[in-house]
């Protein structure tokens, strides 16, 4: 069974003098710490766009926000939020399943998560098509499409990661040991981030 970690743990074989195994000086796995730090920088990227959002909305102080004649489809976006939030639970289920060696549950959870993520993206693209304004329509259009689009791009990347995890899951590659299911856990952490970030985007753009 393959190690699912993408980090180069020294695979020492008999024919070759490899590096010594590094001393593990922290309890956290380095791949997990890596993805957490990556998420930190992603949060800051969203932070830059949120800063722009509040500058355009609060500091520039437009007459109305959203501009006259623009109605955001809050209901559809709300349903979409439910879709994405439920996918967080399904990926958690997948991870718990593989921790107990349940490969069927893993496959079920990962596939459901993938389908829910794809549904979210599909609904969002559909929303873009029918929303009635474009990124060129004033500052509101710019920041609306930038924030939701930035998030959509993250959903897309998350879906890619989930695709890889699915491929490996169906090949029976993961196992109950932590080092054997990092390939589920790491995309899972990323997926939770994408999910939480959507809730913030949804609250900022659609609700308040």
């Amino acid at each position, binding site marked *: 069974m393959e190690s699912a970690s993408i*980090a180069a743990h020294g695979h020492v074989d008999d024919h070759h003098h490899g*590096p*010594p195994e590094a001393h593990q*000086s922290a309890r956290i796995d*380095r791949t997990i*710490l890596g993805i957490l730090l990556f998420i930190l*920088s992603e949060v800051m990227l969203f932070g830059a766009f949120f800063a722009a959002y509040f500058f*355009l909305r609060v500091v520039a102080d437009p007459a109305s926000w959203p501009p006259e004649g623009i109605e955001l489809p809050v209901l559809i976006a709300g349903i979409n939020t439910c879709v994405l939030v439920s996918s967080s639970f399904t990926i958690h289920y997948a991870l718990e399943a593989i921790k107990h060696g349940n490969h069927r549950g893993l496959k079920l959870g990962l596939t459901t998560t993938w389908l829910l993520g794809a549904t979210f993206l599909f609904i969002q693209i559909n929303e873009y098509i029918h929303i009635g304004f474009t990124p060129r329509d004033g*500052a509101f259009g710019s920041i609306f499409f930038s924030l939701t689009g930035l998030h959509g791009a993250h959903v897309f990347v998350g879906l890619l990661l989930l695709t*890889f995890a699915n491929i490996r899951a169906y090949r029976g590659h993961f196992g109950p040991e932590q080092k054997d299911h990092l390939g589920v856990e790491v995309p899972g952490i990323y997926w939770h981030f994408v999910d939480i970030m959507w809730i913030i985007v949804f609250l900022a753009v659609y609700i308040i």
Partner: protein
Amino acid sequence: MAVAIRQPGWYRGAIGTIIGAAFGFGLVVALRAISGLDVFQTEQTGYPHVIVPLITAPFGFLIGFGAFDYWFRWAAGKPTVPEDHSGHGATKWQDYFKFNTDHKVIGTQYVVTTLFFFLIGGLLALLMRAELAQPGSQIVAANTFNGLFSTHAVVMIFLFIIPVFAGLANYVLPLMIGAPDMAFPRLNALSFWLLPIAGIIFLSSFLAPGGSFDAGWTGYAPLSTGAPLGQSFFNIGVQFAGASSIATALNFLVTIITMRAPGMNLWRMPLLVWANLSTSLLVVGATPFIAGAQFMVFFDRILGMNFFNFLQGGDVISYQHIFWFYSHPAVYIMMLPGFGIISEIISTHARKPVFGYRLMALALIGIVVLSYSVWAHHMFVAGMFSWLRVPIMITTMLIAVPTGIKVFSWLGTLFYGKIHTYSTAMLFSLAFIVTFTIGGISGVMLGMIPIDIHVSDTYFVVAHIHFVLFGGSVFTIFAGIYHWFPKMTGRMYDERLGRVHFWGTVIGTWGTFIPMHWVGMDGMPRRVADYASQYGDWNLVISIFAFILGAVQLVFLYNMIVSWRFGPKAGNNPWRANSIEWQVTSPPPVFNFDEIPRVVGGPYEYGTPGARHAIMGGEELEVPEPKPTTVTAPS
């Protein structure tokens, strides 16, 4: 040939570049055809046929070059090839031109590449100084001059100072903490190869219609949103350089946190490790903001969005807030690793422990925290919220406290030390303390609102930034390169030439940048190709010293290149330093250690008989020359 094309490397990289560019071009053509636009623009506005290939071609190159081979295999669910270490380490010079995963090779690649860009950035500066030697217009047109100073700054910041520190740390940091390599060796190699790509993008903007980007390295909107094509090259290049530095910082953080040798707790880490820990925190947290700012400008330029278009409800000042929220922490990204280097060198060559070691480490963290709260001092005259001015002035003053702690601790380390100045590295470190303190003091002056309003956009600002970036960062870079040159190459550089370089650099720096304070106080504006004739005399002096400064760098290059090839063998530990990287051979073995060393004490226990920092694997067999072999228990 056919084999060469299938193997990762330059052939496949070149083909990948072409395919990537063709893919981007085809994408634009196809999308325009689908959406009913003219396939080619009749009136050139956004230049999508240039911009999109400019983004896709680098990815094509990286894929062809082999950067993603392992990850692609993994993604496709194929069994990963057990690490055969074939892409690791260098036995011949060609190995330095490959996708190499050895942190020592990557460190060398970084340092050599960035020194190349240092040379280019310096030549751009000398062109400016030639133009400014006399009032009036002599060598370059005013527009070209704008391009020159913008590219000079961008090349020096994004392609020299930030990455050269990453390079030096890449080389020595895993050795210092007793790790066999960085945490993510492939990501490490990828971050290096993003760098020359960013450099090529920045420099090729000179070929773009309308000239290179010329809105300053700050690229303020709306100046940048309405600028010619070259500005888009800046927007894209920054993304590559930024991704490179975020990936490196992430790698450093994970390496430092999870891969320290047994016994190396936080308070036994050398200060260079502390410095890179804090720098990496800044990079991971702040760099996304410049990525965001440049994305917004890019969207405004290419997609017709309205982030900074006032008439459409955009907010112009928001660019500066978002930009400086990165770019002020960025000046600490450019300085903190240098602080670490200086601490190592001063302690080693004064033969004394670093004075106030824990406070030195905490001061670094203090700077990290404070540096997020001072961005708006770049905007006192920008028309931002007036209530923000005084709080920002106070935080700006506050940041002088941790910085002052560092300066006084270096002085405390030197105090009653056995100061050896036989090494050029130590000379540069001592000069650094002086020039950096002057630059720091002019920084405090600029932090005061009334003075800032008076000297805003004058040569006083130029003088300040060059005192802290040249007299500060670049001096520490020189110090670091001289200090670790014997470790990296296994050979000793020529101290005589080092001294010529040192004195030339110090005299050149002071001669160039001290008079800039005076003309700045008198009101000479920066970023202008011409100036009033009353500043002519001083500018001639500045230009002469600038050319001296430029010329002595050739001595440095000659010294480095010739010594690398023909210098005398350096030995493992020419400076009799304690930290772990000096306990291995020069250059270190390909996997750093046969056995991970055990850390038994602090890193700077100079002058304490029998004190040890680390015990190397199998070392009991050897008898180290200058020190007794007894081992003290960790206190």
